[in-house]
């Protein structure tokens, strides 16, 4: 495992281009585009203000930089550095900006969600979509980029509009049987839309592309409901994480629950491998890593106890958005594993075996898990906890790597390169790239560090 030198960064804005060739990062009002392999600066763009959001177009030709404070969006072309485009939303303000899947339209949401403006880079045409709903996840595109689903709110009722992205024509418009719609998400195959209600009510609805209601699922009543939703990449499963600390897996044939995964603080099954991070003396372990680790290495240790209890957090129940329930879940790219985090056991990541529908492993870190992301190519999970270490889990085992550099490099977020060979580790002011070696080396490293029970 190798690490690049550390580069400056602001507001965690660092993204790989969709084709995997470039890396865009922001330093204050400058946008830096580097080559992924050489890390040499290819382009440097200067924006009008501090950049708050960047996004690559799907064809990796353009980058948009949003400056919400100023209500501005600037678009840069990688091919023509002199080309420029500036969109000013004026007094309407700006709260969100994103590309359409074709990479030629920009969707800007104005303040107070008054409307969504669709700007085209090809023609002068500007489209407006009124009544977008102010919610967590109100816009979703199908993976093939053909359709967009948009949550709307009119006359105190929730609606979903499905647009054809090629000409922004409204394809379907239907009301949903929700109190207060919170999120929508297309299945990866683009044929089923999952719609879930506010956290006050456990309700998830599944709509076909043509607007038919396929199924409704509700696990319980009178309690805080859905917190997170994730489709499996095969579109076969829908994982629904809720405030009761459980993940329910729905199947794509009957849309009924197959199984539910509880997240108890005590793990009784002795077959489950629990990796517990432990501070180690600097001499021990990690010598096998190609890059010399400068300081104490922490290796997740296997626990052989029959009963293992995890550190729990007592949630404050009289506040809004209590820290309970499943806040994060993600399927591995091959749909074989599901990683989850229970927010009142913030130090632990559960990994579930979807083939056998059972718990596979639990990783308990020393500090709360900030983010985790699956390797796009193989079942390998990268985890960061806001400390100076990067944690990798694979079915073979678990390892932790100290990020080198003077001073602590607190990894707040990470993102994989689509090849799975490298990833960007982001801290508050800096970022660096981590290059993973070939599979074999990593495998042995994992085996040496990871435990068997």
């Amino acid at each position, binding site marked *: 495992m190798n690490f690049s030198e550390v580069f400056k960064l602001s507001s965690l804005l660092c993204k790989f281009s969709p084709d995997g060739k470039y890396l865009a990062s922001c330093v204050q009002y400058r946008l830096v585009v580097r080559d992924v392999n050489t890390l040499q600066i290819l382009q440097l763009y200067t924006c009008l203000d501090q950049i708050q959001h960047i996004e690559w177009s*799907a*064809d990796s030709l353009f980058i948009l930089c949003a400056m919400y404070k100023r209500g501005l969006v600037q678009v840069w*072309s990688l091919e023509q550095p*002199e*080309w*420029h*485009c*500036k*969109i*000013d*939303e*004026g*007094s*309407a303000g700006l709260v969100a900006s994103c590309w359409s899947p*074709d*990479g*030629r339209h920009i969707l800007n949401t104005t303040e*107070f969600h*008054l*409307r969504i403006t669709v*700007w*085209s*880079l*090809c*023609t*002068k*045409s*500007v489209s407006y979509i009124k009544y977008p709903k102010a919610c967590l996840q109100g816009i979703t595109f199908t993976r093939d980029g*053909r*359709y967009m689903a948009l949550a709307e*709110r009119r*006359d*105190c009722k929730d609606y979903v509009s499905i647009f*054809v992205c090629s*000409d922004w*024509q409204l*394809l379907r418009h239907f009301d949903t049987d929700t*109190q207060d719609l919170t999120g929508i998400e297309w299945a990866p*195959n*683009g*044929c089923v839309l999952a719609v879930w209600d506010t956290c006050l009510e456990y309700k998830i609805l599944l709509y*076909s*592309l*043509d607007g038919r209601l396929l199924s409704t699922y509700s696990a319980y009543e*009178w309690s805080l409901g859905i917190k997170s939703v994730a489709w499996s990449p095969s579109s076969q499963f829908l994982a629904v994480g809720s405030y009761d600390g459980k993940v329910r897996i729905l199947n794509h044939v009957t849309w009924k629950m197959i199984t539910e995964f509880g997240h108890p603080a005590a793990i009784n099954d002795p077959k489950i491998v629990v990796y517990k991070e432990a501070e180690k003396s600097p001499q021990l372990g990690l010598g096998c890593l190609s890059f010399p680790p400068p300081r104490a290495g922490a290796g997740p240790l296997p626990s052989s106890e029959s009963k293992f209890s995890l550190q729990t957090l007592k949630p404050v129940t009289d506040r809004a958005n209590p820290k309970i329930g499943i806040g994060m879940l993600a399927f591995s790219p091959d749909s074989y594993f599901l990683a989850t985090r229970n927010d009142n056991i913030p130090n632990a990541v559960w990994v579930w075996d979807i083939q056998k529908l059972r718990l596979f492993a639990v990783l308990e870190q020393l500090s709360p898990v900030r983010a985790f992301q699956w390797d796009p190519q193989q079942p390998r999970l990268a985890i960061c906890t806001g400390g100076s270490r990067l944690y990798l889990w694979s079915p073979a085992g678990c390892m932790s790597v100290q990020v080198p550099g003077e001073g602590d490099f607190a990894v707040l977020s990470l993102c994989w390169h689509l090849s799975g060979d490298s990833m960007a580790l982001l801290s508050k002011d800096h970022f660096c790239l981590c290059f993973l070696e070939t599979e074999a080396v990593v495998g042995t490293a994992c085996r040496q560090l990871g435990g068997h029970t």
Partner: protein
Amino acid sequence: MGDWMTVTDPGLSSESKTISQYTSETKMSPSSLYSQQVLCSSIPLSKNVHSFFSAFCTEDNIEQSISYLDQELTTFGFPSLYEESKGKETKRELNIVAVLNCMNELLVLQRKNLLAQENVETQNLKLGSDMDHLQSCYSKLKEQLETSRREMIGLQERDRQLQCKNRNLHQLLKNEKDEVQKLQNIIASRATQYNHDMKRKEREYNKLKERLHQLVMNKKDKKIAMDILNYVGRADGKRGSWRTGKTEARNEDEMYKILLNDYEYRQKQILMENAELKKVLQQMKKEMISLLSPQKKKPRERVDDSTGTVISDVEEDAGELSRESMWDLSCETVREQLTNSIRKQWRILKSHVEKLDNQVSKVHLEGFNDEDVISRQDHEQETEKLELEIQQCKEMIKTQQQLLQQLATAYDDDTTSLLRDCYLLEEKERLKEEWSLFKEQKKNFERERRSFTEAAIRLGLERKAFEEERASWLKQQFLNMTTFDHQNSENVKLFSAFSGSSDWDNLIVHSRQPQKKPHSVSNGSPVCMSKLTKSLPASPSTSDFCQTRSCISEHSSINVLNITAEEIKPNQVGGECTNQKWSVASRPGSQEGCYSGCSLSYTNSHVEKDDLP
């Protein structure tokens, strides 16, 4: 009674009272009187009586007392103390006999009374103790009763309290339920209120939004603009098209196409799944049929009608379903048949298994007596044993294979020379053995020869003696005869000498030759042999011989090897044997041992190698 009172002496009134009491009751029976007396009288009373008697009679009142006594006695039924008076006037004489009789009787009575009294007293004591015991028992029981009563009261109290508590809890529960209901109502009302408020707020918000929209958007805000250097081409290279009804229709078409594709894909998947499941089902069915068919005849022979009919169905089904095309039909048409047949077969299987279970249980019940039936444990033990044996055999085969391999592979110089040495040594040994045998034979031979020569010498001596005898006899005869007889005798002698000497010579030659021969052999052969043995390892001249020998030995060893492999364990073969064959056999055995040792070390190294990574 009244009469008695007046009659009685006033001085004795006090006494007479008691007596009158007695007398009044005398009419009943003397026994009762005694008992009463015993009851009333006690030891102190008797003393009183004594004192009273001492005072009773004095010198003065003898007559009176006698009469009194007489009276008393008569009243008590004793004969009168006086003699029968003949005349009225005559003074009645005291009959001493009667008095004595009376006295005696009284004494007897007294004794009886005393005895009775004693008895009664002991009885009384007994009864008293009984009474005491009973009283204590009574008191105890009373106490017990009391305590149990108290306990009961306590329990009742507790019960009451618990009931009270229960009632309270019920009340609480009810209250809680009410509370819950209330809270739920409150929640519901709050929810509705909240929703209502939300809606109101939202409406307001929407109004504001509209207003803002109007204010912000409709006014020509020059700021809202896109500043672009030049428009770029579309990603797909096409030009944008106008929105028309056609595009709408096209979009719809496309959407449905996508949906259809998805459904088709899913259907394909499902079909594939179905086909696989059908395959499994078919296989299962076939297996079931094949499993059930051997039992078809048996249950038919039995009286079991139901299974028989079902089985015939099964046969039909089997016939039908053997056609592969059946499986390509849609499920709807086949489903019923399929499920039915499967169900039937399943039932048969179930019943069969149940029957088997029953049989097994029966066998188990009977089996302990039944010698023919092998119990499962035995069976298992047997199988275990067999498995173990198989394992051993396998191991043996393995080692043998390894041996063979080693034999095949290990034709490098060291091993070959070693092997050759081995064989030569073997040869040496064998030759030695043969040599010893040969020696022994030679000894025998010599012994025989010696005895033979001795016999010949003896014969020669005898012959000599005979010859001499004959000569003397002939001499005599000759002397007795005339001179011409002398000539004759010479002829005879010549003749005899000729014949005799020739015989003798022959004999001697015969006897000498064997005498010489063994010597030469005995001298020659050991040298030769020793030479042989000495030159065996090195000399090329003997190598041929050696080779042939080794060839033979190999043959023999192979034979023996076969034997050892079949009959004798290597350990036994390794042991010393006097028999030549066995001694040869011991060599391969030892060799084998050596090889097995080698192989062992080999496997060990293998294991180590395994351990290493």
